[in-house]
């Protein structure tokens, strides 16, 4: 398998503070990788670098041509209707303008918001807005999809529905995914591989060779291992 992402010796400093300290990571084409780590360990920093938002780094990395990001907050343009938010994501992808509406509507149907094309973003619930954000990221047909805790601000029930949705969309579009989360269950539910970031490096890695859709019971042992990588040994409390 050719690699979608290849990172070697990535170093990122904020002033005197070294956030990424020679990080190595590969993501294969179409692979779903979950990136776990404590708050403040540099997960968002890594994603921003891969998205090309922070050029001030040392080390090397390669990413595919088409990269999309979904952030923790949906970051929709409130003054553009939902379908325009999505079609504006087609910038630089080179599609014909008159097909934009149709493309946006198809993307909205995929996230089950077909009847919201003309809504204003501020009228959406948190989960709906986040689904629009996903649709906007996917409409570019990305080869790499970067997800930065996209469900962190959602309630538990909405989250569960979003897990289904993301898995389904990933199966259909098959981008490589780098999915940042601090929720171990979420990671084990969705990812082919779980990596743990600490002290600026990948310190642990687990392949999750379980059939999908997964149930929580199926990865109880792996969960204990990953939690211990994260420095949580008292599993009952976690």
């Amino acid at each position, binding site marked *: 398998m050719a690699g979608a992402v290849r990172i070697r010796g990535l170093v990122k400093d904020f002033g005197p503070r070294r956030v990424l300290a020679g990080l190595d990571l590969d993501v294969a084409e179409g692979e779903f990788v979950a990136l776990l780590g404590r708050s403040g360990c540099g997960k968002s920093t890594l994603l921003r670098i891969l998205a090309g938002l922070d050029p001030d780094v040392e080390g090397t990395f390669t990413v595919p041509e088409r990269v999309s990001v979904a952030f923790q907050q949906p970051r929709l343009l409130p003054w553009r209707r939902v379908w325009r938010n999505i079609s504006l*994501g087609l910038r630089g992808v080179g599609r014909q303008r008159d097909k934009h509406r149709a493309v946006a509507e198809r993307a909205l149907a995929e996230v089950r918001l077909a009847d919201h094309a003309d809504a204003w973003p501020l009228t959406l619930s948190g989960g709906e807005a986040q689904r629009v954000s996903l649709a906007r990221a996917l409409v570019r047909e990305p080869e790499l999809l970067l997800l930065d805790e996209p469900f962190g601000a959602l309630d538990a029930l909405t989250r569960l529905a979003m897990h289904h949705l993301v898995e389904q969309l990933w199966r259909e579009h098959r981008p490589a995914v780098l999915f940042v989360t601090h929720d171990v269950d979420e990671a084990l539910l969705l990812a082919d591989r779980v990596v743990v970031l600490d002290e600026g490096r990948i310190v642990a890695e687990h392949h999750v060779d379980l059939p999908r859709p997964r149930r929580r019971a199926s990865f109880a042992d792996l969960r204990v291992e990953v939690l211990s990588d994260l420095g949580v040994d008292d599993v009952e409390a976690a």
Partner: protein
Amino acid sequence: MSAGEKSVSISTAGVVARPESVVPARAPAVKQRKLPDLRRWLSPIGLVLLWQAASSTGVLPPDKLASPATVFRSAYELVVDGQLVDAFLVSLSRVAVGFVIGAVVGGALGLVSGLSRWGERLLDPPVQMLRTLPHLGLIPLFILWFGIGEEPKLALVAAGVAFPLYLNLHAGIRQTDPALLEAARVLGYTRLDRVVHVVLPSAVPQTLVGLRIALGTAWLSLIVGEQINADAGIGYLINNAREFLRTDVVVVGLLVYALLGLSTDALVRALERRVLRWRAR
């Protein structure tokens, strides 16, 4: 883990059929139109009655302030013989021309200093210094520069419009949410795309605030400007009436000023409702 499965199906169903999501976001706007509370009219009407009573009994002499009835009659006469309409049109066109000049200048400067770092460095300091001058205090200079014709009146209105518009447009552009700009960048927006779809729309609410202030200042500037040797317009009407102790006409002129101010304000508010309809509720 049947509990887990159950909650999955519940939440999925919830997503598919969210009841509130079906209703378009129009409904709340209609509800906002409440009937005005008529009790709030009690005291204003009472004051007018009191005023009329004071005039009728001679407590308030007509050379100080005419009675409401006289004011009403004069207003009617001035409308019928066309004087008021002529004066109104002259004043309105002064405000309109001065406003356009001021809006173009203030808007252009605000755009340049908002959108470009060098523009800000070069433009913002002098504008910030100049705005501390009370612009109505510039009248003596304007008279020296432009004489006592139409030009100083227009310049005064334009100055009153340009500053608030500049300040609010500049501030509006500068407070664009960096998170949205970042999202636009990863979505491949060009710089022009970002300005058109992110920066300028996000500056609109603040700019509309500036527009309302600018219009208020425009009327104020006009009223002051029309004290300078006007030979037409509401200000002329008022000054002329003063010489003949016609307090009724003075009051009519003031009422017209007030009405004009109120109607332009209503216009901006209508514009706000239309342009900012993306703001939920």
